[in-house]
């Protein structure tokens, strides 16, 4: 589904990604771990098409199609979803209205009519139930005054609504207490299926106890320095990142 080849990217002339290779197939869950500043979030932003980053070399392909000239919204229409590490506030725009706009814009891009209001409402009810979201929450302004947990849960709610092919969860666990973490992880697990793929970006192994990955990759200094199965995450938890840094330096 997603094929990343020798990807180099920089921001304001500063090189962040220095040759990432990664292949993600349908039905798989990949975890990307690594110390702060290693390039994890940058990788997520580059896949989503954030224009602040310049791809200097290599490519990102989605279902065999090079995404180089594809705008962020077109990537979203192709089924790429990014759960933000720091979700953005939009005052005066309710969660419901935001979702309605997002869904209908995607449908418009595919030449479809707007989703009928009753279908939309039913979908919203369904997904809100799935994630244990109070209905009152949906009429609040997007992310404004939300607690850390509410913001992250809202991201997963949006993911459930948009039904992406590839979901990238950027530090979804940061700022969550254990209960919120469990709810969010449960939500993600319920949405797992054979035709979808997930990339979980995280600093700690904690989240991976709930969302069990098929593969774990460790990024250091803009490169994947080690890949393995889910046991790699445990090893990292045990030993920290330093041994990998040393290994990479050799």
């Amino acid at each position, binding site marked *: 589904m997603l094929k990343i080849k020798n990807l180099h990217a920089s921001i304001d002339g500063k090189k962040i990604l220095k040759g990432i290779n990664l292949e993600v197939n349908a039905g798989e869950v990949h975890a990307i771990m690594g110390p702060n500043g290693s390039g994890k979030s940058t990788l997520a932003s580059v896949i*989503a*098409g*954030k*224009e*602040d980053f310049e791809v200097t070399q290599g490519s990102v392909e989605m279902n065999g199609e090079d995404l180089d000239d594809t*705008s*962020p*919204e077109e*990537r*979203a*229409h192709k089924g790429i*979803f*990014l759960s*933000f590490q720091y*979700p*953005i*506030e*939009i*005052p*005066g*725009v309710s969660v419901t*209205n*935001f979702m309605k*706009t*997002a*869904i209908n*814009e*995607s449908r418009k*891009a595919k030449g479809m009519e707007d989703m009928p209001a009753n279908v939309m409402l039913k979908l919203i009810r369904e997904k809100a139930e799935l994630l244990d979201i109070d209905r009152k929450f949906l009429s609040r*302004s997007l992310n404004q005054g939300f607690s850390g947990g509410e913001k992250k849960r809202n991201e997963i709610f*949006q993911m459930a609504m*948009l039904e992406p092919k590839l979901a990238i969860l950027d530090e979804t666990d940061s700022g969550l207490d254990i209960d919120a973490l469990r709810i969010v992880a449960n939500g993600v697990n319920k949405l797992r299926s054979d035709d979808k793929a997930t990339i979980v970006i995280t600093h700690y192994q904690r989240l991976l106890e709930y969302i069990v990955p098929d593969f774990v990759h460790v990024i250091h200094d803009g490169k994947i320095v080690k890949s393995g199965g889910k046991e790699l995450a445990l090893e990292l938890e045990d030993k920290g990142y330093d041994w990998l840094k040393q290994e990479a330096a050799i």
Partner: protein
Amino acid sequence: MAYTEEELKKELETKEYEYGFYTDIESDTFPPGLNEEVVIAISKKKEEPEWMTLWRLEAYKYWKEMKEPDWANVHYEKPDLQAISYYSAPNSKPKYDSLDEVDPELLDTFKKLGISVDEQKKLAGVAVDIVMDSVSVATTFKKTLAEKGIIFCSISEAIKEHPELVKKYLGLVVPQRDNYYAALNSAVFSDGSFCYIPKGVRCPMELSTYFRINQAGTGQFERTLVVAEPGSYVSYLEGCTAPSRDENQLHAAVVELVAMDDAEIKYSTVQNWYPGNKEGKGGVFNFVTKRGLCEKNAKISWTQVETGSAVTWKYPSCILKGDNSIGEFYSIAVTNNFQQADTGTKMVHLGKNTRSTIISKGISAGKSQNSYRGLVQVNSRADNARNFSQCDSLLMGNECGAHTFPYIEAKNKTAMIEHEATTSKIGEDQIFYCNQRGINTEKAIALIVNGFSKEVLNKLPMEFAVEAQKLLEISLEGSVG
């Protein structure tokens, strides 16, 4: 006798010539310049009674002694008032024979607003077929109003048909000598609306200039007078939401509202006159005086959405004269490219227990400048006066400006005045967040702007709100590269 539609159409067409409505334009337009003779001639052309002519002349005398104000935070080349023609026949010939001749950019805007083809023609100044529907709508409308004793007509008609009312109220709230442009308007006003709601009557529908018969060509010096007798209610909608490409550069309108004891007036405006092109050439100068007077327990609420004009200078105000009266001002002002707006309100608290609310939302994009200027004044006798003001500014890009000039004058110790202000910027992060959810940048801006303006949009009558929302989108198109 039963007419067929076709016959009636034909008859109406020929009648126009019969009555000479469409005489040669040239002969019905005055040469440029303003002096006493011109004022008298305007009054004569409009077949006004003598008292009206004298009233205009008085205004002209005041105006001659006055100077154009320059305290507003706007910069422009002062229009040459001697280069303007002060009278032009109201029903001029259609400018075009078909829509194909009209500026395609304008038509594009009409389409986006969802305006019907017939209405598009009317707005663009294309010859229109007689539409049976609109005639019958207007007729039914007038009948319903008349049954309730409501008067809704052009101000010229009112001067002739209801002189006692006009004489009593014209200039009561905005006197001739109020300010430079109000004096000019008083001397030369072309036409406008008059609305009178009798005691205890609740006007059953939103009064919109759209429904007024003979509404074409109110001209550049519009005069509006709304009188609500004790215990009555009216909601008045001003402006059409389509951007007519008016060739008049200067517009100086006066609007006066009188709300007697226990009466309520809701006055909503959507203004989108030509703002000039992207380089800042052309565009309308909009210098308006709007003021309402509240007697005991009365309420006046101004709601405005301003997206047009090159230069705007406008402060819809409330004189809270009666005890327990209420004044409200809800405003969205959008400026893009090289537009400049200096707008706000004045709340003058004279009576006891008077309350006022000000919610102002300024949105600046491009190289525009957007200023809020507001005065809250509490008189020494106005015990327990309350005001709440909130002024929010939203900036797009790095080249525009937002300014806030709040003036507070409190002469009574019991006054409670609150002022809140925020300035924010549409961030690239917000836009990327929307993009990532599949919403393109234009739509994202519209969404963010609508969210920002929500408190004010909610105050507009439903159908107006929908159009206003679309208008906000159109005005800000292309404002983020």
